[in-house]
């Protein structure tokens, strides 16, 4: 296995080296990116077919000499004059744009550049495989490490037990010979405890108190789901989508501004991008295939929908109890709260989503620091007590709704308003954000 990976690496590196040395055509690259890259990729079919060694393909296919250049300038003319071009025009329903301004040399430069690009799938295959392998090993090592500790603990416990047993047997043998009273462990302990009753008393008190305290504290953990990270049918990496690719959260969670639920993207939203993006590595391709299976997308040819859809059953990460009403649009649109205040920095979330512990949330710049565990009621109302309602006469911004509320306060009870403003802000709590029926009904 390793051998083959090494071989792949060597092959890829060699290829890169050669390709790099031949790739001197900067003009081709510039033109390709400006004119072609929207629809074409060198090694993969997208909206348009892949362009790698396309001249060879045309020549092999029996195209007329020069018809490929005519195609680029005006594909309809080419299709009319060349039977091969005619067949190419049926490749996809979407028609290609005409580029009459491109000269033959420029087109050649583009093709030269395309032919010189390495196939990333072939190159990355080996590399990624190796990385995966390492990661797995690490995990195993970590796992076995903790096992060692547990094993050691058990061995020590057995040794202690055995030793004390030996000691006791010896002592018994000894007392037998001395013909003294035979004392059980309990009696021994009682005598010892009586002798040191002050220390034992204090120790017991401390023990009991700490037990009670820890019990009470642990009661507070009931229903706390910090760090909850259920497994998912598709390992969705947020960091790649929103971090690397910079997709806005609202693109996929698009009902966040309209509805109480932010909405999981429906599969057709995934397909907006994934029709083109089908993964560079086999591992990625495997994951994306799950999206295709859900959407009923067949990758054959230019790709098509088969109609056999299979909804993805995600495991819900942020689960609120049924008696809690939470509205995303209220917080995002009206409150202007950033997603990261509650969900953390998703651009760095490598694995599937999880409930980010409050400690981590607090580290994020711009977040209101809170103390209670994430997704508990304490956490919610703590924020309601901190978050200022910015709009209104306070900062001169215009908001019809809060202007009216502030006006009513000002006109009716100035002293109450001033009390609110002692900390320089009117908080959500002061306008009723701590009331039961704001979230429970």
């Amino acid at each position, binding site marked *: 296995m390793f051998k083959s990976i090494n071989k792949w690496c060597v092959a890829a590196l060699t290829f890169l080296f050669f390709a790099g040395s031949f790739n001197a055509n900067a003009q081709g690259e510039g033109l390709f990116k400006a004119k072609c890259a929207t629809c074409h990729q060198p090694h993969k079919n997208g909206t348009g077919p892949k362009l790698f060694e396309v001249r060879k393909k045309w020549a092999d296919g029996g195209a007329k000499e020069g018809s490929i250049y005519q195609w680029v300038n005006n594909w309809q003319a080419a299709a009319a004059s060349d039977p091969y071009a005619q067949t190419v025009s049926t490749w996809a329903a979407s028609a290609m744009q005409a580029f009459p301004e491109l000269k033959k040399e420029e087109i050649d430069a583009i093709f030269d550049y395309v032919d010189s690009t390495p196939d990333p799938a072939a190159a990355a295959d080996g590399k990624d495989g190796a990385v995966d392998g390492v990661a797995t090993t690490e995990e195993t090592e970590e796992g076995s490490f903790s096992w060692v500790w547990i094993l050691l603990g058990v061995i020590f416990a057995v040794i202690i037990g055995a030793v004390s047993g030996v000691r006791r047997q010896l002592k018994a043998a000894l007392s037998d010979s001395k013909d003294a009273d035979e004392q059980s462990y309990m009696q021994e302990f009682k005598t010892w405890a009586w002798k040191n009753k002050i220390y034992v008393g204090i120790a017991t008190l401390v023990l009991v108190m700490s037990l009670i305290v820890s019990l009470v504290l642990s009661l507070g953990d009931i229903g706390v789901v910090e760090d909850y990270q259920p497994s998912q049918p598709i390992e969705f990496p947020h960091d790649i989508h929103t971090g690397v690719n910079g997709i806005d959260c609202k693109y996929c969670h698009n*009902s966040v501004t309209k509805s109480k639920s932010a909405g999981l993207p429906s599969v057709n939203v995934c397909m907006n991008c994934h029709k083109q993006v089908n993964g560079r590595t086999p591992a990625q391709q495997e994951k994306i295939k799950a999206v295709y299976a859900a959407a*009923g997308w067949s990758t054959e040819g230019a790709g098509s929908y088969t109609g056999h*859809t299979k*909804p993805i059953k995600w*495991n*819900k990460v942020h689960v609120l109890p*049924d*008696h809690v*009403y939470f509205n995303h649009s209220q917080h995002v649109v009206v409150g202007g709260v950033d997603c990261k205040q509650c969900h953390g920095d998703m651009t760095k979330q490598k694995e599937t989503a999880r409930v980010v512990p409050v400690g981590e949330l607090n580290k994020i710049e711009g977040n209101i620091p809170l103390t209670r565990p994430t997704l508990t009621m304490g956490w919610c109302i703590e924020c309601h007590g901190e978050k200022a309602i910015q709009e209104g006469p306070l900062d001169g911004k215009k908001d019809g709704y809060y202007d009216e509320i502030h006006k009513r306060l000002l006109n009716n009870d100035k002293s109450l308003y001033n009390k609110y403003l002692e900390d320089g802000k009117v908080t959500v709590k002061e306008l009723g954000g701590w009331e*039961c029926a704001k979230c429970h009904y």
Partner: protein
Amino acid sequence: MSTTRKYWKGLEELNETPSFVQGRDQEFPQSMSVDEFLADENLKETSTARRDFLKFLGFSVAAATVAACESPVTKAIPYVVKPENVTPGMPTWYASTYYDGTSYASILVKTREGRPIYIKGNKDFGITKGSANPQIIASVLPIYDSARLAGARKGNNAASWSTVDGDITAKLKEITAKKGKVVLVSNTIISPSTNAAIAKLKAKVNGGDETGTSFEHIQYDAVSYAGIRNANKESFGTDFIPDYDFSKAKTIVSVGADFLSTWLLATEYTPQWSSRRNPDGEWMSKHFQFESVLSITGSNADYRGMVKPSEEANVLAYLLNKFGVKTAATTTLSKQAQDVADLAYESLKKSKGESIVVAGSNNTAVQILTNKLNAVLGTYGKTINTSNTVNLFASNDEALNTFVTNTIAGKAPAAVIFYGVNPVYTLANGEAFGKALAKVDLTISLAGYTDETASKCKFICPDHHALEAWNDFNPKKNHFAIAQPTIRPLFETSAAQESFLVWAGAAKRGGKDSSVVYDLIKTTWSADNIKATSKYADFETFWNKAIHDSCIDVAVENTPSVFNDAALAKVAGKLPKVAALEVVLYRKAGIGVGAQANNPWLQELPDPVSKVTWDNYITMNPTEMGTTYATTFDQENGLNLASVKVGNKELTLPVYPSPGQAPGTVGIALGYGRGANDENIGNAAFQTKEYGGHATDENGKRLPIGKNAFVFTSFENGTLSYSANGSITKVDGIYPIAATQIHHTVMGRHSIVRETTLDIYSSKDKEAYNPAHMLETHHGPEHISKFDLWEAHPVEKIGHRWGMTIDLSSCIGCGSCLVACQSENNVPVVGKDEVRRGREMHWLRIDRYYASDEEATVGTRENKETFDYGKAEVAAQNPKVVHMPMMCQHCNHASCETVCPVAATNHSNEGLNQMAYNRCIGTRYCANNCPYKVRRFNWFNYPSYKKFTQVNPAQDDLGRMVLNPDVTVRTRGVMEKCSFCVQKIQAGKLVAKKEARPVVDGDVTTACAEVCPTNAITVGDWNDIKSMVRKNADDKRSYQALEEVGVKPNVWYQVKVRNEKNADLEKLQVVKESAHHGEKKDNKAHH
């Protein structure tokens, strides 16, 4: 790498050891018998000691508890392709139309994630102006009834649609070849497209012969209005129902027509009527009602005369006589009715041409008299439009009667198709008809259930539920409407129109996503008579507009018809006969003709007048009950039974005291006794036992709720008659009954109900009819609001203060608000037994108060010196009635809040009395302390306890789909009550916030307010001085119920104003120096 792996549970399995193979092949070894096993001596030694057992028990309980702490994994499944107009978490509203053969309304259907969960009237479009009756609002529930047929049936077995269609088509072909007759019995079809589909089937059966008679279509309504049509044929030459406009009538005389609840297009008339009941309006109509059973309309009339059904003609003849028209009918009336008739005459004379006379009777002669009176009054062309005819209720009683008698006599047609009708249940001779159906060659029912008629048919081809189907309607000549589906069909049902077309060979079954009916309607609507208006350039624009609004209007000219006096000759000898006891068959607002008898919301909806749930009964005036039937209503001990006999038919029912019932009459509600042969029409249609399960007879058949009074209907003088002459005898035995209100009068408690007359209201000061509550102090009288135990809540200062005003002048007590509240707030149904224990869960109730003889009107004391509480308890023979919706008053000084030990109920700074269910520990102190008795306690876990399986829709997976996902389903042991629809308040506020504008009227409303057909309920922000609710609350008619207890509610009532003369009341309602003096004396006199 190998892709197929072998997994094994152990080395034994891997190596397939002999013992393993034996164990695997024989999962339950038989080698050792039970006796052998128990005889094993070793077992005794292995017995578990008691202490060990307790240890195990303790451990397993602890382990189970710990394990239960783990929260379950919740799945989230997004759409694969999200429909464009669905946003998860947001409701989608569809404009549609409701028509079930008796009720019609333009409606709005609320769907969440594709599930219809709530229906309200459409206030923007349609002839019903947002009005909808309880049946329409509750019709969202039966779509999730698991008793609905899941597919086509042949005989008693499920069959595929292709089999059924094949069989039916073959059979029809056979019949056509033999020139056999095919009869389609349907309710009145007002759908142009359905008629088009039926025409195709007709052509097919007639073999393309236009004049063929092989196919007969009989329209039959359970409650027929053929009398009106026949009378109009005699009077004006054509058979039609005219368009009534109650908003133009200054005097309304109704003779037995319950036009605010069940009569004709009541949903259209209610808003018309209420628009002229505002005492501050340009003018206020004067409403006279003559009737036998106290109806919703009668309870809202200014004057009410009690007449027997046979006297209805006398009222009309009496009035005609006064106008100088002699008729064949006698003019004798009881003193009471004659007094009212005299007043009616005076009023009619004053408002000639601006009045309306309607009659509820289905007797042609009575309707001819009505027509003559209207002609004399000159109402045609003004309040009654004879050109814009109503297409509803085209029942052909005569044709049906002939068909039924022939069938029973063995002269049945070759094939009968039933669509939208249930004649085996609704015919007096239904049983015989049902038996005769067995002999018919081909019987098909299109019913959605195996109901009384369908169960007698050879094929059942279930139609969609109305919310799953396309349909179109032409209720009136000038109005066309569309019903659109709000959910994909839940079951393998198929639209009736599609069935007709398939059998006519004009279409193919399209399954669940069929577009057959959609295409049919589109074709019909592209015809010129509908597309008439030139406003729309092209059909698509017109079509989209029609679907968006759900309806369109076309122009119809109003040319008044001229009454042909020859019709009067047809009156003599055709009038209802007089008898000592006349039995009146009436309809309740909730159950109607029984089509939704399986709807637990409607069964538990208290009758608007009697307040009885889950039963029908004999209504009798308490003054007539005497000692025979007990004089008081006693829920604890039950009611006396009596047997009513009409002809050779007999019904034994409990006798319920009903003040206002005409002497010499008894009333029985139609629509009960559904499923008498244990037909599978839905769980809620049958009686339940005390601890759950259905009550059954000795044969194990489920017992229906109530008795079927349709057996008393008869075919007389060419129409069906809904009154009969009979006799009543007492039957031994006591029957338990469940009513939600067990006291009849308000006993002069002026601080709950306030009422006055239009004269007093317009001539006297507020202090006369709506005096302020003052308390005597050492420095003079002070208003009640000055006295406080607590600091005031700062609701008037911060943000909003949600308030509600209820105009008692407009409220007609129809019960729509109650059903809407139940639907919006997931209020559980509890069943008859729990209602009897006073544990109904309705957040909103409508108190109905009668006046006693001690009161000049409801809520007064006629003579303060002699006022007797004992006598005041008894309602008058023909009492005045007030309907008063009562829900949580959201008191700013709520007495419930101070007694809650855990602060589960507390006050918001928006004026809401909020209820945190998760804090509630169920002490019920709050309910005990509430002066309005509006708090409801969850005695059981209604969504799961077996006692409620039959009645509570939330107990099965299908029924649960109707629940509103924005409202918590409460569990056992917590208190609940009206929340002012806080979920709607929050949603309304959010809309304003997102648009960065202040909340304005219309943003925030409650379920009860938005369905109110008379707009009696107004909800809004009291702190907004421009709001409607503030305007109403500051109105001189506004008062607060039990204001003297000082709880400062956020609900205001507006004094009821009746347009009547009341000399006693005028004496009472005068401005006094200090009104409270009289009150004080009364308190001393009280016991």
